[in-house]
C-alpha cells in the first residue's frame, strides 16, 4: 500500500472548496489572485457556495480576517502577531492557499536563517564549474514569489537575527531584487506580497526594527474571547484532525471539551471563570492549539490502549504534560489548582480530579 502524506498543504486538503469558490466567482478578482477578496473571506470564515459547504478555518474575529485580506489587496505586507497558538501560521497558510493556490513559499525564521535564504544563494558546483549564471542560482521562496506575483510567507520573523530581518526592508519598499553577480534586476510582479508571523512571547529576542514594522500592516490575533468561541474552535479542529490522523476513537464529548477549555482559560488568565479566585499561572503557554493537540493525544491514547472512548485518565495524562512544563513552580501551580479549584467543582469534575491527583501523588 502506498504511504499517504502525513500532512497535506491547505490547497490540496481543501481543493474542493477552493474550486467551488473559483467556479462561483462573480466579484472582480485582483491581479495575481485566484479569487476575489470576498471569496477569500468566505473560504477562511466559512459559508456556502452553491451546494458546497465551506468549513470555517478561522473562528472568531472575522473583522481581523477582513483587515488581513484588505491589506493584501493594497500590496502591503501583512504581519500577524499573537501569543503562541493563536493560529497565526494557520491563517497565513490558508490566506496564501486561497489567494495563490500555493501555500508552500515559506521561509521558516530561525536563529540560523541567513540573508541568502531570504534572497538567493548558489549551487556552488555549478558556480565553480560555469561561473555565475541564472541556472546556478538557487532562488528563495521570496524571489520566486516576486517573479510569479505571488505571496511568500516568513514564519517567526522575530527569531531571525536583525540583519536578516532588515534584508526584507529593501525588498518591501523597492519591490525588486537585484543580483549584482549577473547585473540583473528582477522587479516584483503585481500580486507580490509577504505574510510574516511573529510571536509575542519572543518579544525582545530579536525585536523588529521600527523601519521594518512600518512596512507591514500589523494585525494582532487575540486568544479566543469567550469560552464558547474557544470550545467551538477546539471542536472543529479536533474533528478535522481526527479524520486526517485515523485516530480510531470517538470524538470528545462537549463536556470534555468544556472542561479542557475551562482549565486552559483559567490557568492562562490567572483567575477562575467567575473571577472570584486568583490563580498561579504556569510558565507554559496553554494556547488553544495546545488544547487541540491535547485532545488528539487523548484520542490516540483511547484508541490505541483504551476502549475508544476518552477517559479521565487519558485527559489527565495530557493535562499533566501541558501544564507542568519544566520547573517546580508549574507543578505547584497545578497542584494548587487541583486542590483549590477542581476539587470543589463537584461530581462532574471528580473523575478528572482523581485521575489528575493520582499522577501527582
Amino acid at each position, binding site marked *: 500500500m502506498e504511504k499517504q502524506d502525513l500532512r497535506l498543504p491547505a490547497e490540496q486538503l481543501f481543493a474542493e472548496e477552493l474550486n467551488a469558490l473559483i467556479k462561483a466567482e462573480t466579484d472582480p478578482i485582483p491581479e495575481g489572485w485566484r479569487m476575489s477578496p470576498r471569496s477569500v473571506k468566505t473560504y477562511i470564515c466559512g459559508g456556502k457556495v452553491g451546494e458546497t459547504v465551506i468549513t470555517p478555518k478561522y473562528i472568531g474575529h472575522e473583522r481581523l480576517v477582513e483587515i488581513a485580506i484588505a491589506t493584501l489587496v493594497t500590496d502591503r505586507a501583512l504581519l500577524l*502577531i499573537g501569543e503562541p497558538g493563536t493560529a497565526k501560521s494557520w491563517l497565513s497558510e490558508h490566506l496564501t492557499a486561497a489567494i495563490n493556490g500555493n501555500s508552500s513559499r515559506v521561509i521558516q525564521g530561525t536563529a540560523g536563517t541567513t540573508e541568502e535564504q531570504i534572497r538567493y544563494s548558489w549551487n556552488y558546483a555549478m558556480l565553480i564549474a560555469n561561473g555565475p549564471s541564472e541556472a546556478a542560482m538557487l532562488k528563495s521562496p521570496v524571489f520566486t514569489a516576486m517573479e510569479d506575483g505571488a505571496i511568500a510567507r516568513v514564519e517567526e520573523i522575530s527569531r531571525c537575527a536583525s540583519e536578516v530581518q532588515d534584508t526584507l526592508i529593501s525588498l518591501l519598499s523597492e519591490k525588486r531584487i537585484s543580483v549584482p553577480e549577473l547585473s540583473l534586476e528582477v522587479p516584483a510582479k503585481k500580486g507580490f506580497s509577504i505574510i510574516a508571523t511573529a510571536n509575542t512571547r519572543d518579544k525582545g529576542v530579536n525585536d523588529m526594527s*521600527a523601519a521594518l514594522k512600518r512596512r507591514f500592516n*500589523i494585525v494582532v490575533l487575540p486568544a479566543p474571547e469567550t469560552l464558547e468561541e474557544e470550545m467551538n474552535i477546539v471542536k472543529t479542529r479536533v474533528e478535522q484532525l481526527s479524520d486526517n490522523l485515523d485516530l480510531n476513537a470517538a470524538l470528545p464529548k462537549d463536556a470534555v471539551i468544556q472542561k479542557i477549555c475551562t482549565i486552559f482559560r483559567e490557568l492562562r488568565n490567572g483567575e477562575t471563570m467567575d473571577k472570584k479566585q486568583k490563580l498561579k499561572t504556569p510558565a507554559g503557554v496553554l494556547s488553544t492549539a495546545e488544547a487541540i493537540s491535547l485532545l488528539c493525544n487523548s484520542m490516540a491514547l483511547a484508541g490505541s490502549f483504551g476502549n475508544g472512548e476518552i477517559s479521565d485518565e487519558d485527559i489527565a495524562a495530557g493535562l499533566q504534560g501541558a501544564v507542568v512544563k519544566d520547573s517546580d513552580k508549574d507543578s505547584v501551580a497545578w497542584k494548587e489548582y487541583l486542590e483549590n479549584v477542581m476539587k470543589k467543582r463537584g461530581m462532574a469534575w471528580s473523575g478528572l480530579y482523581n485521575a489528575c491527583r493520582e499522577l501527582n501523588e
Partner: protein
Amino acid sequence: MSGVNFFGIRHLSPAGAFFLREFLDKTHPELVMIEAPSDFEDVAADIVRAETRPPFAVLAYTKSIPVRTILYPFAEYSPEYQAMLWCHENKIPFRFMDLPSETFLALSDERLRKAEEDECEDSGENTDENKPDVYEQIAEKSSDGSHETFWDRTLEQCADADAYQEGANLFGANIRTLSDENRYDEEETALRETYMRYVIRNEVKDGVSPERIVVVTGSYHVEGLKNWENEEILPELPVISSLHTLMPYSYYRLSTRSGYGAGNKAPAYYELIWDGLQKGDRLYAANAYLSKIAAKMREIGNAASSAQVIEALRLAESLAKMRGGLLPTLRDLRDAAQTCIGEGNFALISTAAADTEIGTRIGEIPEGVSRTSIQDDFYRELKELRLEKYRTIVAQDLKLDLRENIRVSSERSAFLDLNRSFFLHRLRILGLGFAQCVPSSQENATWAESWVVCWTPESEITLVESALKGDTVEIAASVSIKEAVEQAQSMSDIAKAIDDSFRCGMPSSAGYAISALQAAAVDAVSFEELAKTAFRLSRVISYGDIRKVDCSAVEPIMKQLYYRACLIMSNSCICNDDASRKIADAINMINSVELAQDCLETEDWIKALKEVSSRDDLNTKLSGLCTAILLERNEMTNEELKIEVSRRLSKGVPADLGAGWFEGLALKNRFGLIARLSLWESLDEFINSLDDEEFKRALVFLRRAFADFSSGEKDSVAENLGEIWGLNGAQVSETVNAPLDDASQQLLDELSGFDFDI
C-alpha cells in the same frame, strides 16, 4: 399621490442635512414642517440667530416632582437645524409639527410610573425581551455588525438627494415592517403620527397647497404620515405642566447618549463628513480623520508618519470595497488606523481616536436667550457680587476674606466676600465646575478662603440641568443638600451636609439635616462615628460666627452626641491593636471638641478618661493614651502617675501589655513625659525586672513607642537615663542615637519574626 413632499432623515445625519438643503433649493416650498415638539416654536427664533452655535439642545422638564425631562440635541449636521436655517435664509416659514413637549412628558411620566409599578409587582412576562430589537435585526441582516455602520455605509454615502430621499424612505418603511408588532412605544408612535397628520391637514386647510409643503421627519414616520388626508379625530392629549429652554450642548455629551436620534457616538467625525459635503470632497472625512489621528499621535509624543496615513487610507478604502461600499465607514477608518498607525494595537491610538471621533466642541447660546430662571438668578448674583469678570475660560485665583470690612460704609460691601463665599459654596454643592475651593495653606483658617474660578460652557450645561431642582441657585442648592441627607450612608455624611449648609449660608436646610441627624443618632452608632460627627459639628459652631449664621440649633445635638460618646467610650476600648488606632483618633477628636466648646460638661469627659485610664481589661495602648490626656489636662498628679506607672509596668504584667501601655502614653505630650524623671525611673525598674524572653517581647513594643521620637527628644530621654544611671548624659545620647550595627540589626530582624501567640 398625496402631494406633500416627505423627506425622511435620521436626526443626526450629515448627508441628510446636506441633501435636504439641496432638495429645498430645488423644490423651494412655501412651508417647511419639521418633526419637533410644536411648543418649541418659541425658541426657534433664537435657534436660527447667527450667534447661536451648535451643538445645542432644547431641554423640556416638568415642574412637579419627580422631574421628567426630554432633550432634543442639535448639531451642525442635524437636518432639522439646517432646514430651519434654510427657511430663515430664504424667508420661508417653518412649523414644528410633533406633539407638544408637555404631552411627551406626560406620556413618559405615565410610562415610568407604570414601569415602577410593574417592578413592584415583579411580573415575569416580559415578552419583548426575547424579541430582538429592530436595530439588532438590521445589524444581523446587514453583516455589518451594527445598524449604525449599515446606515453609514448605505445612506450617508448616497451620491445625491434623490438617492438619499428614496433610500431613507425605504429604510423607514422596512423598519416599520420589521418592528410592526410589539413595539414598546407603539401607542405613543401612533398618537404622534395622528397628531402630525392633523397638523399637516390643518396647514393645508389654511390654504397652503400640499405640493408646496416639505415635511422633514424621521424616516420611520414617512409611511405613517402619507395618508394625512383622511379626516380623523384627534384624541385628547394628556398634558403635564412643564417648561423648556435652549441650552448649549457639547460633543462629549452628544457622544455619551446612545440610541437612535438622541445622540451619536462620533460627533466630531460626522462633522468632518459634513465639512466634506460642503467642500464637495467625499473623501475629505476619511483623509481628515486619519490625518488628525496622526497629528494627535505626534502631539502626545508618538511617531506617526504621513506614509502611515496614506497606507491607512488605502487599507480603509480596500476594506470598504470588500463590503461593496464607495467610501470607508468610521469602522473601516478606525480599523485601518489601528492596523497601520497603531501597530495593530487599539490602545496605542485610543486617545487620538477619542479626540478625533468625539472632539471637544461646545455650543454657544447668545447672551440673554431663553434663560431658565436659575440662569437669570445666577447672572444676577454674579453681577451683584461683582464676580462677572471671572466668567472667562482662563482660570483665576480668588482670595476671600470673610471678616467684616470695616472701612466701607454699606453693609453689603462690608460682607461682600462672605456673600461671595456663600454663593460659590452653593455652586460647589450643585456640582458646577465654575469655582473650585482650594485647601487653604493656613490650617483651619476660619476667615480666609481661596478659590480657583474658571468658566466653561460645561458649567452652563450643569447650571441649566440644575433648573430641575429649583428656580434659584439657593433653592437648587438646598434641594441638593436635602438629597445628600436622604442618601447619606453614615452620620458623618449628614454632619457634612450640615457643615455644607452653613458654608452656603442656608441655616434652614441645616435644620432639615439636623433633624435627620437626630433620628440617625437614636440608632446604635460606633464611638468613632460619634466622634467624627461631633468633631464636624464642633467646627461648624466654631466657625459659625465668622459666617454670621446662627448655629444655636446645632448645639443641642452636639451635646447629645458628646454625652453618648463619653458613655460608650470605655466599652469601645476593648479592641485589638489594629482597631485601636482609629479609636485613638476618635478619643483625640472628642478631647479637642470638649476643649473647644464651653457648653459641654467637662466632668463627663474626665470621668470617662479616668475609667479607661484605670481599667486593666481594656486595650492597654488606649489606657495609656487616656492617662496621657489626663496628665496633659492636669487631672493627674505626679504621685498618681507614679503609682499608675509602677502598676502598669510591674513584674508579672505581660511585657507586651506593659510596653503597649507605654506606647499609648507616649502618643501625647512628650515634653510632659520627659520632664517627669519619676516616670523614667519606673521604666528603668520595669526593664531591669524582665527576664531575657520577656525583654525580647517588650523590646519590640518599646522600639515602636520610641520610633517617632525626634533625636532631640531622644537626647532628653538619654539625659534622664544618664541621671538615673549616674552617667554622662551626652555619652548616653550618643549611644542611643547611633545607627545600629549589622549584628544588632540582625538580632532585631529576628525579633520581627517573633511569634507572640506562644
